[in-house]
């Protein structure tokens, strides 16, 4: 049995959902409401003691690292290959994913959570917030949530994150000028990793990402959003993520695929 414990089709949470839908692998979806911080609940900590999502359990084998999980899904299940056959392009695929995981996605997460999630903590009882923080097992995650809850992210960090996102947009546009997909001629895990975080850029960063400024990235966004597997994964969302993806499709002029 294959079980996926995760939140929305968004960033790390979305990676297994997109991969499984692309390969058409059936699975049991356990929705973990990150907005209610269910990933720090005792029930979820019994699955993953680190309290990070996603967690994927295949016949009792527990996996908690999102990018290695993507490779596992392609490795262990039938369906269209999501990794290039050539070792060099595989190296490129992993480089793109590493750059995204280490540099770009955390920067976008910092910007987005300060804009969207931080306001809900304004005026909350500090003692209550402290109790919430104490439930978070990993010290590095606790430190990030503390900055968010108490509005302590240094402005210089936010500025650096914005710079990194701008740089990434330029970098990916340049890569896509050379090849149709991020790791060569074929769609791969690298594209899934990036679209999982970049899907909403046409609506959230319209001045930076548009058909004139970033034509190659724009074409790639259209090709990703047109894929039935990607659209099916977005339909698994229970919150606002599915709506944001639909808005992006509208702006990109992408047709809705059959359900």
């Amino acid at each position, binding site marked *: 049995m294959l079980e996926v414990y995760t939140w929305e089709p968004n960033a790390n949470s979305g990676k297994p959902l997109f991969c499984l839908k692309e390969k058409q692998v059936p699975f049991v979806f356990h929705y973990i409401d990150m907005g209610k911080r269910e990933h720090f609940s005792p029930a979820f900590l019994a699955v993953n003691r680190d309290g990070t999502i996603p967690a994927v359990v295949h016949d009792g084998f527990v996996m908690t690292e999102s*990018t290695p999980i993507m490779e596992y899904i392609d*490795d*262990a299940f039938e369906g269209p290959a999501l990794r290039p056959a050539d070792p060099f392009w595989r190296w490129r695929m992993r480089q793109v994913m*590493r750059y995204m995981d280490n540099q770009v996605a955390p920067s976008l997460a910092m910007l987005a959570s300060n804009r969207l999630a931080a306001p809900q903590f304004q005026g909350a009882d500090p003692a209550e917030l402290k109790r919430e923080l104490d439930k978070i097992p990993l010290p*590095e*995650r606790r430190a990030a949530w503390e900055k968010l809850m108490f509005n302590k992210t240094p402005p210089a960090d936010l500025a650096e994150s914005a710079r990194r996102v701008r740089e990434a947009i330029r970098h990916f546009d340049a890569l896509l000028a050379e090849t149709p997909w991020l790791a060569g001629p074929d769609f791969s895990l690298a594209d899934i990793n990036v679209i999982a975080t970049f899907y909403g850029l046409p609506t959230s960063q319209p001045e930076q990402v548009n058909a004139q400024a970033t034509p190659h990235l724009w074409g790639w966004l259209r090709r990703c959003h047109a894929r039935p597997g990607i659209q099916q994964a977005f339909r698994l969302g229970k919150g606002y993520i599915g709506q944001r993806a639909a808005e992006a499709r509208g702006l990109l002029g992408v047709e809705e695929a059959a359900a």
Partner: protein
Amino acid sequence: MIALYHGGPSGHSASLLIALAEKGLAYEDHRLDLAAFAQHAPDFLAVNPAGQVPVLREDGRTLTETFFTLLYLDERYPDPPLGGADPQARYTVQKWGKYVETHIAPNLAIVDWALRGQTPDDTARAGFERLPSERRALWEQAVTGFPAEDVQTARAALAKAADRIAEDLAGTGWLAGDAWSLADIIVFPHAARFASLGVAVPAAMADWLERAGQRPAVRQALGGQDLAVAAATMGPERGRWG
């Protein structure tokens, strides 16, 4: 022909040297003196602008990032196989590759630097100026000194890493599946430094270090050098948003 730019048998360079020896692959040897910051000299920055070793070149292509280069070698030269015998072992190899990068290497660099109390000379400082902004920021932080709290956090992270290494060794004596693999090869050179940095080494980990060190390919790659002796390097940036 493979060309390898490396800093000798320590840290990430040791992992690639070991893998090349395991597979019996010949290579053109470019050894850099990391103690003299040769990796920040203009001629090497032309090879890798990030100023980091090891770098592998083959067929006119330049490969960086040790763990991905290890996977590349294993996929291109599958004999003997080191990537894990089944999907679970291969996932575990990937998990350890990631863990070294996010939890072990950056924290090892901080603890090591704090113990050295080294003051870089003018040549070294000039080298930092040539680096991309993220790498330069890391070295500038090192020169200023990491806050005591950061050093403490880094130490705690290494202690936890030692426990997780021992935990994964408990089943078969190796980190991924039932044989020596890239998981062992990527973790080993870093883990071999824990004791000299004052990080407690559980018995299962000590036993594994001993067995790993006895492998013919490891002995060949190390050439008698002690893995605990290494030049100061800055690992990858520690996660900036948790």
